[in-house]
């Protein structure tokens, strides 16, 4: 992958990356109630990192986010699997979710849902998969 040296792109993306990441987080948390969810949020996050890689280079991404994305995939899968298995401990079938409404400080009445944990697994797995593929192909000479 060529090393980028576009000043405008680099300076703009320094700001835009955070906007995208914040939007991705918003999409992730709002997923159960309005459009969004782990899958889209994961792709969006990967897109932000990709923008970073395009405007700077892959080294920068590795330095800024020093994560082994293969492990991230594995962690995501494990979280999804554990959420499913967790239901078994309460005598429920595999992957049965539970939810409830709680009164939390600052947030007010909030719905807490085990599906969100499952979605976190999806989120991490999607980031891991996308970034593994992109970085592997991008780094290849």
């Amino acid at each position: 992958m060529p090393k980028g040296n576009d000043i405008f792109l680099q300076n703009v993306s320094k700001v835009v990356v955070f906007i995208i990441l914040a939007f991705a987080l918003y999409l992730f948390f709002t997923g159960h109630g309005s459009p969004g969810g782990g899958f889209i949020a994961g792709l969006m996050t990967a897109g932000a990192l990709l923008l970073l890689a395009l405007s700077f280079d892959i080294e920068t991404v590795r330095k800024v986010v020093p994560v082994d994305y293969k492990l991230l995939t594995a962690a995501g899968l494990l979280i999804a699997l554990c959420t499913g298995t967790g239901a078994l401990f309460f005598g429920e079938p595999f992957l049965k979710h539970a939810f409830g409404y709680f009164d939390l400080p600052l947030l007010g009445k909030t719905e807490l849902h085990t599906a969100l944990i499952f979605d976190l697994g999806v989120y991490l797995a999607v980031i891991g998969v996308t970034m593994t593929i992109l970085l592997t192909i991008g780094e290849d000479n």
Partner: protein
Amino acid sequence: MSLLHLLTLSPFLIAALIPLLGKAVPRLHKGWFVAALSAALFTILLGYSADIRGGSPVIESFDWIPTLGISFTVYLDGLSLLFALLITGMGALVAVYSVAYMNPEEEDLTRFYILLLIFMGAMLGLVLSDNLLTLYGFWELTSVSSFLLIGYNHAKHRSRYGALKSLLITMTGGVGLLSGFILLYVMSGTYRIRELFEAGAPLVSEPLFLPAMLLILLGAFTKSAQYPFHIWLPDAMEAPTPVSAYLHSATMVKAGLYLVARLSPIFAGTSEWFWFVSLGGLVTLLYGSVGAVKQTDLKGILAYSTISQLGLIMCLLGLSSLAGVFDGEERLLYAAAGTAAVFHLLNHAAFKGALFMVAGIVDHEAGTRDIRKLGGLVQVMPVTFTISAFGALSMAGLPPFGGFLSKEMFLEAVIEPLHAGIFRLETWALLFPVIAWIASVFTFIYSALLVVRTFLGRRQEALSEAKIHEAPPLMLIPPALLAVLALALGLFPGLVAYSLIRPAAEAILPIVQASGERMPSDIKLWHGFTPALWMTVGIVATGTVLALTARRWIGLYSLFPPRLSINRLYDASLRFFERITVRVTSLYMNGSSRSYVKYILGFMLLVLGFILFNSTGITFRVGAYAQIAPYEWFILLGLTASALSVPFAKSRPVAIILTGAAGYLMTLMFVFLRAPDLALTQMVVESISVTLYLLCFYHLPKLRTERQAAKFRLPNFLVAVAVGVLVTLISLAVLGTNPFDPVSDYYVRESYESAGGKNIVNVILVDFRGFDTMLEIMVLGVASLGIYNMIKLRRKATDVGSRHVTHEGEEADDEAARLRKAQYGHDGPDAQPEDMPQSRTEGGEPDAER
């Protein structure tokens, strides 16, 4: 979720934690974790024995995938308890032994113990599940973990050959087993073993009964290394010795026996079951014991001996099925074979476990397992000698060891069919005592040779110079315990007769208990001058003579033509199938992605076209659609324009950007159609895939302009046009046809009420169809790892692997190297042992150093 469930799954849990535990206490050998877990499980299980003995099995259940009738039901009765105790008890001993055997500096212990724990968990699950499908799942998991453990030294060709062989054979059986289970389900409508027992007699008259039985037996026979599927077991001896002692003598190979015993209540009483099981066992018994005599490798002898002993137990299980045919006194006579089977199972675990561990000790201390090079070790290893003497005496069936008792019971059981007079036994019953006697003579011979040639006699020169000494105590304690157990089972059989053996035997033959009797289980050391005792006297006399003169007649074995061996058949068929596969695959896998696209689209055309053509009630309501707004026209025009201009693009980036434009216009379309989720996903996917395309195309050579005009290819043209037409037709038909009630109503109704979410799309993804999502991200993960492997771990040459190693070849590695050279023109990765690992770390873990 109950204690029993937790108990079954705990090995998997510890397996996941092993790497962390190893880091937390780096100085402790990881084997201790396994030993501690196994010992704890053993103790807990022992606590259940009082209940089981009282005749009340423990049953705990929870639904796993209720819609498919799959539940994870744990059922603990006598038979399961015996096996579970065997698995955990042997597991603890083997783990302790392996602490001394496996050197933490040279071996990859984390991998070893994780695999061992996975195996233990799978085995526990296998013997405790009451649902045939979960049983099958655990069954295959034992095959897989055994495969990985045999191939533990994966740099060795012989290990890989042995691993692949065991996997191919046991998995073939596994497929048979699954089909058999499904046939049982078709007949009875249940996967629960307990419910199958209740379905009972009507099953026998079903036409599918015999196929189901044969398929299940195929699974059991391949797993338990019965003739002619036994060939994988000797090659499995490439595994580290603790593994051989644990998997390939005490536990995994007995899974087949467990299955036969467990399903006996369904099949017992039919002549096919009787003949297949007992005759299969009998042939294996003879074949194994005769084959063991000619082996020169200690573990080879033990492998063949294991085959033979498994055959013995299988034969006893077959004989016990006669109890289903008779009544009263006679029934008990035949049922005694069941007791004998269970008792011998226990004895075998004790003496064979001890002998395997001794083989490991000899290998460890003397550096060889070849009995031609050994001898005279008794002077330096007295304790090891005593242990192996105990084991061998029990194996040979001499008093006062446990093996003697169960061998006597076996001999009594093979005489019994002489009086049966059914299933054509009038003519053939004599086979049983005669073959059993011959096989026992050979068992005596190899037991004698095993001990005598290793420990007695003169020491070979090469060995006498080396400083051989007794093994460390940690390595001696587990086999010593087993040897003492082998003796104790003979002297005090009452210890286990009523607490363990009778409940287990009664689980095999519930019919006995149903008729108000108890299984005969009075096992006594002295039981009078019975015909069985006289047979034993004959065995010892003949065996002693033959063992002393062994060197004179051992040459007879070479008369057997090696061309006819089953191993040759296996090797040849493997090569044959490989050739066929290569030929067939190269017919359509020609490397041109253009033709792959053609195949994929062609297949889609066939299937979809067929369905569209054949289904009735399809209406094309042309003209009845919603109005297309003016701005939508713009988008459509743009879409068409960008799609059409892709083929005419002069450079790749332009083509990619045009494809991207089509995608983004589609996103806009989704927005107008009020599908925000779709639009969002489409937009992000489009952005990322355009970048991905750019990255990929960056690596491709420059696009050349062809001077001559492109050739017109009719097939490609036809496929392209047909796909276009078909997709248009389908999209038109979808709007006008509605053969089913839409499912969306259900989701609209339920997603807020029962799933607590307002976004139906997301609720479906993570909740209603969460299982799909989980598997999908798993597929994605595997795909990404595949890409990573393909690009980062590229090797200079593909290793041809162990498929070309034959069973006989001692110089397997040389042969494989020759083949590699012939195929690739150079030596491949093994030729540069210095270079390879280095380049692998460079390419493989780019972030490790940074």
